[in-house]
């Protein structure tokens, strides 16, 4: 019986292959966009992890010699004997003339798994040869191709090593660098139970994980952005599915009624629909997965480029396949199809056995539905405003987004209806009046596609506004924060003294930047000592400040805090902040500090040195004429002997961050175009299905004296009018979306708020794109209408009694 029901219902698709294609493509595209974004995200996260692990295992605490130098071998052996899980690393630089190679010697036998470089997990690597003399050395093909110091062991190519660096066994590194003591010891995060804390067991200096990679934190924001976007794309796809399913159910009403009249139980029919839907969803989901994988693979080089810019690390620009990822994407598709089908199933269940199949009743009902939807939308807007103002969590931020978008989608048909009604009342010509009135009449049939278009456009505007604002703000902020030309980090105070001597009068100013880690307002934080210098006074980005903030700071009578701290601890100008048991100062200013999650405070340098005499002064900002920067940077590396990463050129950092944003733009741009394409496709399928039902509306107009070509042009115009109106409505929605992302979600997720910038030129581009999409979607139905044989139009007037 089930089989009979299924085959009868399914035979519908044989005559409606276009509809079937729309349904499958809608589901597939929704899955593709969602899973593509997920794949990119997952892959990028893995890559960060790899990069971090390869570059310096900076996620683990380390032990170094008492003044930052090497660890005496005896101390290492003593710690291991007591049972501590520490692993030695020898790092250094091999040079010969031009050639320089950063060498990282590790001990794979004792290295904690968190620090295991991915290159060593490669199964083709001969680990025995790695351990034993003469050993192996791992580097990228690029590094291996460049000038290399002599005397290296056999080279193994690995993609996951940073440029100009190599990884080898600690024994090999020891031999090559002529160094027996480890440079530092990595500490495994979990130590055997029962041992006293490491800090009590040794005199070595305990160095917590490196938290200096500020720019890296930007990537979290980038991912949040992409995830939100992926969800939006999925939602757009679901609208298509909803439309296609709704239509398929609508058209099979008569069949359902016949089947029921023949004695088939409603349950069997509903189960058949369910089975059919699940089968289609599974099939389309699989296609979507393949598509999503293709999208991700196509965009991956961009992501890899982004990461290269961020970490200076080579990330493989290829994708792995993760079954969990695939399964979760399929699950989303099934859930989405169920959601879209639920309403249709409910309608089928409620279908009276004897009611005539009257399309008119459906249309009048849709007028009521539109008003009801508008009411729900208003409630949702209220909820969105409430959540945005008083929500106060990341979850409520996302709930605001959802309420805003769903509300905007729901209110769209009613708003468009109102505008078109006013337009048709106010135009003079008979044709203009008809065009608007007729367009209004198409709204119920097109509303889902238009909602998809609205969401696509709003997402487009929202996400590009967000990324653009992010870029503008961040680059501007970098300009201010990195006002000095060079930033130099030295190993200890001895080297700091030598540096001062070396620099002499080659620079205009040497500005020490000292810091200690201190809890601030009950949270882990950092206190900086900053010299009083115009560099800071003129450039430091203060969000709020008291009139003589800089004088107070220089005099040691006030403190500056970052925005994060001000928000977390709800601190205002004039509030007192305790920096140390004996030091409580009023807050005289708040500065923006993007990309950093931790609390920070700045103290005048003199006061800082008084309070924290032991804090090492190892970082310096150098002011010098821009023309001399490159020369001095080279001199600091070559003549003074600082490692490459200890000399930071601010133009380099800016270039990196700009690169990050260019890549982000490229990826969001590509996704935007795809989402818009999906919405255009939804519009096309809706127009095609409407085209058949529309003949009774068009035939009289044609008979009364219009040509088919004119009608076709009106069809195009109708589509353009709807797209233009939808764009106009999408604009405020997109801006609200951006505002919520920047001012609510970002604050909850990262503790800082971004000022919003708007980009009207982008809107114009998008507007044209939307018109283009609408014209493309209407082209086929319009072309068909223009070539329609008159007899097809004439059939409307005859027979069908």
């Amino acid at each position, binding site marked *: 019986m089930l089989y009979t029901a299924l085959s009868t219902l399914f035979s519908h698709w044989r005559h409606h292959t276009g509809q079937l294609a729309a349904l499958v493509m809608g589901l597939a595209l929704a899955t593709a966009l969602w899973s593509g974004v997920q794949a990119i995200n997952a892959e990028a996260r893995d890559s960060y992890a790899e990069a971090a692990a390869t570059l310096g295992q900076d996620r683990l605490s380390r032990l170094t010699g008492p003044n930052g130098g090497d660890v005496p071998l005896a101390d290492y052996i003593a710690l291991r004997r007591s049972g501590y899980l520490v692993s030695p690393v020898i790092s250094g630089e091999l040079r010969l003339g031009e050639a320089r190679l950063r060498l990282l010697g590790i001990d794979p036998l004792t290295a904690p798994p968190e620090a295991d470089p991915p290159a060593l997990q490669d199964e083709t690597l001969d680990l025995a040869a790695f351990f034993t003399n003469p050993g192996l050395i791992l580097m990228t093909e690029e590094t291996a191709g460049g000038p290399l110091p002599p005397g290296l062991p056999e080279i193994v190519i690995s993609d996951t090593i940073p440029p100009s660096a190599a990884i080898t066994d600690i024994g090999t590194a020891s031999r090559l660098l002529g160094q027996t003591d480890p440079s530092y010891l990595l500490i495994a995060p979990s130590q055997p139970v029962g041992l006293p804390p490491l800090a009590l067991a040794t005199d070595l200096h305990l160095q917590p994980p490196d938290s200096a990679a500020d720019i890296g934190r930007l990537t979290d924001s980038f991912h949040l952005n992409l995830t939100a976007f992926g969800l939006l794309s999925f939602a757009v796809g679901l609208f298509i599915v909803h439309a296609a399913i709704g239509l398929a159910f609508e058209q099979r009403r008569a069949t359902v009624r016949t089947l029921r009249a023949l004695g088939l139980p409603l349950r069997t029919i509903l189960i058949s629909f369910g089975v059919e839907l699940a089968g289609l969803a599974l099939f389309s989901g699989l296609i979507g997965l393949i598509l999503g994988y293709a999208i991700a693979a196509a965009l991956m080089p961009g992501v890899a480029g982004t990461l290269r810019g961020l970490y200076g690390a080579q990330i493989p620009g290829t994708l792995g396949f993760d079954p969990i990822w695939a399964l979760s994407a399929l699950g989303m598709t099934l859930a989405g199809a169920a959601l879209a089908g639920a309403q249709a199933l409910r309608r089928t269940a409620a279908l009276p056995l004897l009611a005539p199949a009257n399309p*008119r009743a459906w249309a*009048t009902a849709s007028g009521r539905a539109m008003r009801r939807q508008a009411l729900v939308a208003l409630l949702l807007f209220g909820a969105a405003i409430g959540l945005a103002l008083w929500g106060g969590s990341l979850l409520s931020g996302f709930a605001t987004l959802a309420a805003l978008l769903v509300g905007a989608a729901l209110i769209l048909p009613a708003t468009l209806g109102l505008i078109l009604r006013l337009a048709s009342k106010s135009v003079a*010509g*008979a*044709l203009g*009046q*008809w065009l608007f*009135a*007729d367009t*209004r*009449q198409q709204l119920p049939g097109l509303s889902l596609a238009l909602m998809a278009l609205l969401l696509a456009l709003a997402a487009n505007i929202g996400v590009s506004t967000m990324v653009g604002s992010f870029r503008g703000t961040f680059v501007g902020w970098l300009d201010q924060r990195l006002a000095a030309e060079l930033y130099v980090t030295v190993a200890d105070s001895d080297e700091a003294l030598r540096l001062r001597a070396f620099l002499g009068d080659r620079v205009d100013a040497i500005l020490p930047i000292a810091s200690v880690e201190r809890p601030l307002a009950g949270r882990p934080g950092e206190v900086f000592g900053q010299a009083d210098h115009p560099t800071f006074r003129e450039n430091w980005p203060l969000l709020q400040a008291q009139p003589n903030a800089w004088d107070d700071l220089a005099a040691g009578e006030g403190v500056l805090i970052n925005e994060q701290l001000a928000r977390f601890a709800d601190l205002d100008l004039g509030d007192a902040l305790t920096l140390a048991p004996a030091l409580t100062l009023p807050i005289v200013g708040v500065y923006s500090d993007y990309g950093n999650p931790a609390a920070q405070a700045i103290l005048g340098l003199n006061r800082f040195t008084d309070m924290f005499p032991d804090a090492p002064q190892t970082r310096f900002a150098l002011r010098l004429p821009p023309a001399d920067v490159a020369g001095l940077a080279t001199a600091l590396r070559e003549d003074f002997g600082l490692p490459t990463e200890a000399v930071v050129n601010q133009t380099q950092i800016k270039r990196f961050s700009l690169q990050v944003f260019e890549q982000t733009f490229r990826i969001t741009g590509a996704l935007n175009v795809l989402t818009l394409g999906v919405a255009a496709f939804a519009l096309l399928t809706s127009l095609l299905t409407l085209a058949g039902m529309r003949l*009774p*509306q068009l*035939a*009289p*107009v044609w*008979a*009364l*004296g*219009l*040509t*088919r*070509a*004119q009608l076709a042009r009106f069809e195009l115009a109708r589509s353009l009018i709807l797209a233009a109106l939808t764009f106009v409505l999408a604009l405020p929605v997109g801006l609200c979306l951006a505002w919520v992302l920047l001012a609510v979600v970002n604050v909850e997720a990262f503790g800082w708020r971004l000022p919003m910038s708007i980009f009207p030129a982008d809107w114009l581009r998008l507007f044209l794109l939307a018109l283009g999409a609408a014209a493309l979607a209407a082209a086929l139905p319009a072309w068909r209408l223009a070539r329609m044989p*008159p*007899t097809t*139009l*004439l059939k*409307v*007037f*005859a027979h*069908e*009694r």
Partner: protein
Amino acid sequence: MDSLLVIENLTKAYGPIDVLKGVSLTLDAGQTLALTGESGSGKSTLLHLIGALDQPDGGSVMLDGVDLAGLDDTGRARIRRDRIGLVFQQFNLIPSLTVSSNIAFQARLSGRHDPEHCAMLARRLGIDALVTRYPEELSGGQQQRVAIARALANRPALILADEPTGNLDEATGDAVLDLLLDLVRETGAALMMVTHSTRLAARLDRRLHLSRGSLTAAAQGA
């Protein structure tokens, strides 16, 4: 005086089926003509060719001295707009426009809109209380009256009606036809009407019967 409509040797086939096999007829201004014939005999087809809604395979249709065969799509649309009033069996009205906009639509298209004329037609047809409604809110008989008002509003030379009362019950149909004939006579238009009913056909000036692709004079009152 030249005839309003001169048809010579008109042929039309749908694939292998020859529907019209050389139909000729003339119709003078102000004349009314009833066209009868079995279902499928080609009555609607003939009406469509006369109304410039479709093109014949052979022969000619001259309307007011203009050969329809020489016109392109735009020219045919202009003839329909300016010269012809149409009343079909169903779906005559534009569903998105109100009754008053429907009545005025064609007249406004051809630039001959006369609000007073429209108001008079609505009054005569008894639909003046309905002008703000939409077609879907009217009964079948009311819809046909609106269609008649629209066909006349443009002051066409020729009105083509294809079973205008076919979907109506007898009493309503008679009432609608009475109004149509009265108004046609008042405005001086010619009328060609397809009907299955010889009773209705008897009320028109001339009667022709279409059978096996050719016209013959219809038997009176059969």
